[in-house]
């Protein structure tokens, strides 16, 4: 049972606003030292999936820079490894709009007889799972597609891209797209397991019919026609969805909760990221850091509370940083007061600057800006 992986690096870019203007959603920094894609790649690497294609559309330079030679994920392999799949434009194909089109452009990578199964993933939903168990269940049920999903509480105001109802044997009984959960239900995590041979046939067929979206044009349509059988693989652990700026901010803050943190990070299945060889963080005279996640290479002389601090950040004397996400290399000047701010990479906050956001509408300062 050998499986390969496909990762979509930018599908929901538009909903994350300024943060994804200059990068793919996959390379969005998260949790003090990671990028979103680290979670999916680590899950794959920890599950023995070493042949991985990354489907990119645009702005993928930061992603290539982050992944480098892939040794930090243990994916720099002789016979397998990671392949970038930028848009392949020829004839009537173009830059794709949906996952089916994107997958079709990668059909030559997918149609590799060395692999029986294909795990197709987004990067926005974060979890720490062993894909081997899910593939095992996929084989046992013999269904066409297995969808990884977790239980989410009812919330009539919040729309989910994919809601599933399933019977006791986890067989899917209903699919809803872009709908709120009226009762507690399974919500898709953007991870699908296909049989490799079947997937290539699906892609050929959908290309000839001009189909675009995987969920709407294939899964829901075929399911409603009773043409395919779908299974849910329930995930019990921590699942964090980054659908918009608000949830991205909340998910970062959620890592300050010990239970959520330990659910996402564990010693048996580490989450890998790019090594940067920074010195440990220095806590100077006058620093007061509390309830925060801190990466290496920072220097603190001021106050930091309930924040996520990435590598190489400096906080000057008498500055106060509260409930902020401070990305790599940002410098915060003296007497600056920041609350609920997302500071992108290499931002300079001048002395005495005051910035106040709210958890629902955090202030965002773009990459390299000076305020």
């Amino acid at each position, binding site marked *: 049972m050998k499986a390969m992986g496909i990762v979509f690096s930018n599908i929901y870019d538009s909903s994350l606003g300024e943060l994804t203007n200059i990068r793919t959603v996959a390379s969005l920094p998260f949790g003090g030292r990671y990028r979103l894609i680290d979670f999916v790649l680590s899950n794959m690497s920890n599950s023995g999936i070493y042949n991985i294609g990354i489907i990119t559309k645009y702005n993928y330079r930061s992603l290539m820079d982050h992944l480098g030679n892939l040794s930090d994920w243990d994916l720099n392999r002789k016979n397998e490894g990671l392949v970038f799949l930028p848009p392949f434009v020829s004839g009537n194909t173009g830059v794709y709009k949906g996952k089916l089109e994107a997958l079709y452009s990668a059909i030559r990578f997918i149609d590799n007889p060395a692999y029986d199964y294909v795990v197709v993933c987004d990067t926005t939903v974060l979890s720490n799972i062993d894909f081997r168990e899910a593939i095992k269940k996929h084989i046992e049920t013999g269904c066409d597609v297995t969808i990884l999903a977790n239980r989410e509480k009812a919330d009539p105001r919040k729309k989910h891209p994919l809601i599933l109802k399933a019977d006791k044997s986890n067989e899917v009984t209903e699919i809803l797209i872009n709908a709120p959960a009226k009762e507690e239900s399974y919500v898709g995590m953007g991870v699908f397991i296909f049989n490799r041979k079947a997937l290539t046939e699906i892609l050929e067929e959908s290309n000839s019919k001009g189909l675009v979206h995987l969920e709407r044009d294939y899964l829901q349509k075929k399911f409603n026609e009773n043409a395919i059988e779908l299974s849910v693989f329930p995930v019990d652990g921590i699942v964090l969805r980054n659908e918009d700026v608000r949830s991205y901010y909340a998910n970062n803050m959620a890592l300050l909760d010990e239970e959520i943190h330990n659910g996402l990070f564990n010693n048996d299945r580490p989450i890998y990221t790019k090594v940067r060889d920074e010195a440990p963080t220095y806590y100077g005279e006058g620093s007061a850091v*509390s309830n925060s*996640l801190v990466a290496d290479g920072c220097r603190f002389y001021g106050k930091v509370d309930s924040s996520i601090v990435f590598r190489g950040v400096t906080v000057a004397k008498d500055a106060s940083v509260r409930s902020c996400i401070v990305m790599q290399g940002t410098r915060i000047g003296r007497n600056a007061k920041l609350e609920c701010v997302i500071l992108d990479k290499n931002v300079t906050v001048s002395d005495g600057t005051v910035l106040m956001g709210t958890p629902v509408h955090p202030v965002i300062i773009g990459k390299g800006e000076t305020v």
Partner: protein
Amino acid sequence: MTFRKKECVAMILAGGQGSRLMVLTENTAKPAVPFGGKYRLIDFPLSNCVNSGIDTVGIMTQYQPLQLNEYIGNGQPWGLNSTNGGIHVLSPYSKSQNSEWYKGTANAIYQNLSFMERYNPTNVLILSGDHIYKMNYAKMLSAHVRNNADCTIAVLEVPLEEASRFGIMNTDKSGRITEFQEKPKEPKSTKASMGIYVFKWEVLKKYLIEDNEDPESSNDFGKNIIPKMIAEGRRLFAYDFVGYWKDVGTIESLWQSNMDILGDKPLLDMRDPDTKIYARNYAHPCSYISPKSEIVNSYVAEGSQIYGKVYDSVISTGCIIEEGAEIHDSFIMPNAVVGKRSEVRYAIIGEDSTAEPNTRIGDDPEFYEKKAWGIAVVGKDKVVEQNSVIKPKEVF
């Protein structure tokens, strides 16, 4: 297989036991001893080599090499996993006629002549695996070439009263070494050898072969090779090194060098981006700093959790400092745990060790007679049981 000629090959002596580090090197080689929160001693010569443009390195291991070999791996963390050159772990091996361990520093290099021969280097740089310093060897190499030297020895100015602990070089005005005194009672100069040598390859080869044939020799660079070269009128030059350098031979010096990285203008700056020290990184998440913690003038590495108070200390990756615990002026090695309400002062706690709640380890010097006080040490993989006391100078 053909090997491309190298301008310089570095040979790192990493076989030492470091017996004066006691429990810390019971089961591991001295170059694998942790330092500075996320480093090991071997990271310094390796990173210096890389930062000086040297890409071919041999590491001679002998004593308890398992952890060190694992740590070095294929050299990828230092960028030394290259096809042309790269890192080579050189352990003693059996030969058709005889088999032997490395008997002395010169003998270790002698036994690896064939390794160096393959790269046909112009010069060979010989380093120790257990010194803490940042140095650009390229500058030393160019001085060596400029002087047309057979051997160049890096020297450090030491206080006159300490000079008798070192090998002392006496030089003329041009920097040429006229005399070498090993641990002299009455030193004539204050230029101490740092154990860093650059040799012309052909000269080194000749002297090593002669040294090996001499049954009287103790096969040591300082005792045998260097004095013989001076006596025979070879061109030996001293290279003045200015900067931080520490031979961490003792518990005190290991502790002191960790304290030397603290402060706003530290004696040894670990943050300088131009002289980065690289280390093997493990996939630890960020460190978590709890609301009840307090951290002042300290380094805390990724993967640690701080619930207690930390002053003037170095806390390494994967450490847990529990609530109510207090750490003062100490070096806590990777993955150690300090339990609730425990107090650690002027101490080193070894890798993977645990101090259970309510322990007291070490104490401030001012309450003790000078001779009765010292750094308290907990070894590797040890458990200090609840309510117990490890006195200053005690080794557990």
